[in-house]
């Protein structure tokens, strides 16, 4: 018997605790799940110090690449854990179908809301709920983008509960971030841990920027041959600037700031050294309100005056379209299963988390009485901000949140606390269990395509349920294994 066989602990996993959570890798103490067996026995051939040294190598590579975040004035590499997260083929087939279905339905919902509003008329979603969304943009009413498509790229956050059931936690349909990490994590993984690939058949992800480019090109105004696509960034000061530059580079399109663009005759142009050049598609990474100081927030220094008009006239496509925030509002989330049934006449494939709308009296009364076991979220919150995790909060924090809920019930929802699944993460020279989620990316051109796997985000603090990179989360490479 050697280390790594069933039931024999590996030194890397000394004192590893499953602790009653659903563990991605282990079904019991030192009992790896079927999917992870080959990886587990592969690890037996590595010494703990080797694994740590490889990790340090990747950290340095992230630093060199400038994939960093600011930590007290010092640049730190974006934390990356070298042990991949595995998803077996049959599970992925299920997720793939469910994600594509969800994004198709949400896109139809947005188009319908800015168009004929059938769903509201038929009582699927209350009109008042949608038109009071933070993301609702009156100026988009009546706008019909090419293919009728509003959502070109979506990041859907999935979690697994105690029973290992995958559930949608939230939808990100405005500027979902992280696709570059999916591609780069894999590239670094290939360099630092090549042995692991030998035992598996891993679905590649390197073509993701190409998929995105295809989707963006299909959004171009009609009749534009070889359309000009640009990535619009708020600039290097933005936390996701690395991603903007990476995607622009990989798609072979210019990375622009608002001041590089000009509107003439309701068309958008690039300012080049030799004059103006027409732009057809803008993949924007700027919030809706900042896109056009002439018709949205007048104090915006990032946008382009006249963009909204050019967009309404169909002279340029903005991706994702402005106003998609109505579909990732957390109160609308509660209605997504009905939205899927209504628009697609299909049963939802993916489960979601039971949700209470605090605008409803009976829901609110229930939530206020049970805050210590629920998660309360602001409907327009993102990045792990504006939420209360009841079981982890102090009575004072819960009271403060209850007050905010009473003052603005429409602004909040509550959900049952999902005990997020955990996965082994290297801490020092040993693995420790940390909570994880998964953000797969759906790219929607002619049809929705899900990039295999996605970004597994890791809460690095022991016990923490917040995985967002803006809150000190890290990531793992995610492998979809072929059957």
């Amino acid at each position, binding site marked *: 018997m050697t280390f790594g066989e069933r039931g024999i602990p590996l030194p890397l996993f000394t004192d590893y605790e499953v602790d009653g959570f659903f563990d991605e890798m282990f079904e019991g103490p030192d009992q790896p799940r079927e999917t992870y067996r080959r990886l587990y026995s592969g690890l037996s051939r590595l010494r703990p110090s080797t694994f740590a040294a490889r990790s340090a190598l990747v950290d340095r590579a992230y*630093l*060199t*690449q*400038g994939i960093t975040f600011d930590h007290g004035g010092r*640049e730190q590499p974006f934390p990356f854990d070298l042990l991949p997260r595995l998803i077996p083929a049959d599970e992925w087939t299920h997720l793939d179908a469910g994600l594509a279905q969800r994004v198709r339905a949400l896109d139809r919902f947005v188009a319908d809301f800015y168009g004929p509003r059938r769903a509201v008329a038929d009582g699927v979603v209350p009109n008042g709920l949608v038109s009071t969304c933070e993301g609702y943009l009156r100026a988009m009413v009546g706008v019909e983008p090419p293919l009728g498509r509003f959502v070109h790229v979506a*990041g859907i956050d999935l979690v697994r509960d105690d029973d290992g059931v995958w559930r949608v936690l939230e939808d*990100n349909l*405005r*500027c*979902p*971030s992280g696709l570059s990490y999916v591609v780069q994590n894999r590239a670094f993984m290939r360099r630092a841990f090549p042995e692991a690939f030998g035992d598996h058949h891993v679905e590649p992800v390197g073509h993701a920027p190409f998929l995105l480019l295809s989707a963006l090109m299909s959004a171009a105004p009609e009749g534009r041959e070889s359309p000009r696509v640009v*990535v619009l*960034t*708020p*600039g*290097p*000061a*933005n*936390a*996701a*600037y690395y*991603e903007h*530059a*990476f995607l*622009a*580079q990989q798609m072979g399109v*210019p*990375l*622009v*700031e608002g*001041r*590089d663009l000009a509107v003439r005759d309701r068309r958008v142009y*690039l*300012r*080049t*050294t*030799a*004059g103006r050049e027409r732009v057809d598609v803008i993949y924007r*990474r*700027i*919030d809706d309100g*900042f896109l056009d100081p002439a018709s949205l927030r007048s104090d*915006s*220094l*990032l946008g382009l005056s006249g963009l909204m008009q050019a967009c309404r006239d169909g002279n340029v496509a903005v991706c994702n379209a402005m106003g998609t925030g109505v579909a990732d509002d957390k109160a609308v989330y509660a209605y997504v299963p009905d939205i899927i049934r209504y628009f697609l006449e299909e049963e939802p494939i993916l489960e979601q988390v039971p949700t209470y709308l605090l605008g409803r009296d009976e829901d609110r009364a229930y939530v206020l009485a049970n805050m210590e076991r629920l998660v309360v979220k602001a409907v327009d919150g*993102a*990045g792990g901000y504006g939420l209360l995790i009841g079981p982890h909060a102090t009575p004072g924090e819960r009271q403060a949140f209850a007050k905010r809920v009473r003052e603005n019930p429409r602004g909040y929802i509550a959900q049952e606390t999902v005990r997020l699944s955990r996965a082994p993460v290297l801490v020092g020279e040993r693995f420790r269990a940390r909570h994880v989620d998964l953000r797969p990316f759906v790219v929607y051109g002619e049809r929705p395509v899900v990039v295999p796997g996605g970004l597994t985000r890791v809460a690095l603090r022991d016990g923490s349920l917040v995985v967002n990179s803006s809150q000190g989360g890290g990531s793992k490479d995610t492998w979809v294994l072929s059957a």
Partner: protein
Amino acid sequence: MLARVAETLYWTARDLERAENLARLLEASQSAALEGDASNGAGGRLVWEPLVQVAGDMKSFLLTHRRADERSVPWFVTFGRDNPDSIAACLNRSRENARSVRDRLPTEVWEGINDAWLELVDWPPARITRDGVYPFCRTIRRSSYLVLGLVEQSMRRDEGWQFMRLGRFLERAERSARLVQGRYAARSDAAGLDDVDPGTWRAMLGDATAHEAYLQVDAAALSPESLSRFLMLDPRYPRSVAFCLGEVENAIEDLVAMDAMPPNPAPMVLARTARDMVETAARKPWGGPEVGDLLERLLARCTSIDAALAESCFIASYERAPAGQRAQASRQAQN
């Protein structure tokens, strides 16, 4: 190519070249200050003051330092916070510029510049005092050589490459001309001294590599005139003013040929007249007051080429990042 991107690439190359140049000069100056007159109390005037002239200007230097000597100048040139063109400041700008156009640079080029910066940040400033400037300057030079090699080997010869070439050679032309000018100024103050101290004149060439190139051309005539003529007019030495201005002109012509600049742009006209000046000078005997005059006219021409580029093809100044853009940019949700 985007006007902003062109300008940023131009400055990325220009600042990197400036940092490298300063490192080469600092190294050569320190070694020149060790022997002969320079080591006998005249080092300030013979070595350190001319270096300050090339790196910035003496007047503003004296605002924050008592005198130019072997302690104050190396610090000023490397990390000096009062020096907007210190090696650290140049490398920082080059890196921030490279970051903002990293999608247009080969990944390895960006990594090279970023690594150079990360290494400099980790450099304990006290080490300059302890180990001398050599290890520091060597690191800077090597980083620059690495990046330049990658640029040459991995970049398409597109507009981006041409704008980087333009920035690099315009910077180099200007620095070489200022180097000669600084020497001439030092000489007219106390004529005769320099002739007996060829060591400090040799420092003008920058480093050993330049000295070796010179020796192949005119080893027998080691004199201030011969050295300055080499640095100004040699048509084949890649750091001579004549060579650099030729590259500037070629880069502009190539840009026009690829429609990245309108035909016959102002920078081209200016570059051509600068080359004419150099060619005319090459036909006449070298020396005398005309040299100082030529130097001034050439330096003024370098400045006007830069200004013409800014005006004719870089982004106009009113389109520069408005104050407050950074703050707004950092608040954009990327969820």
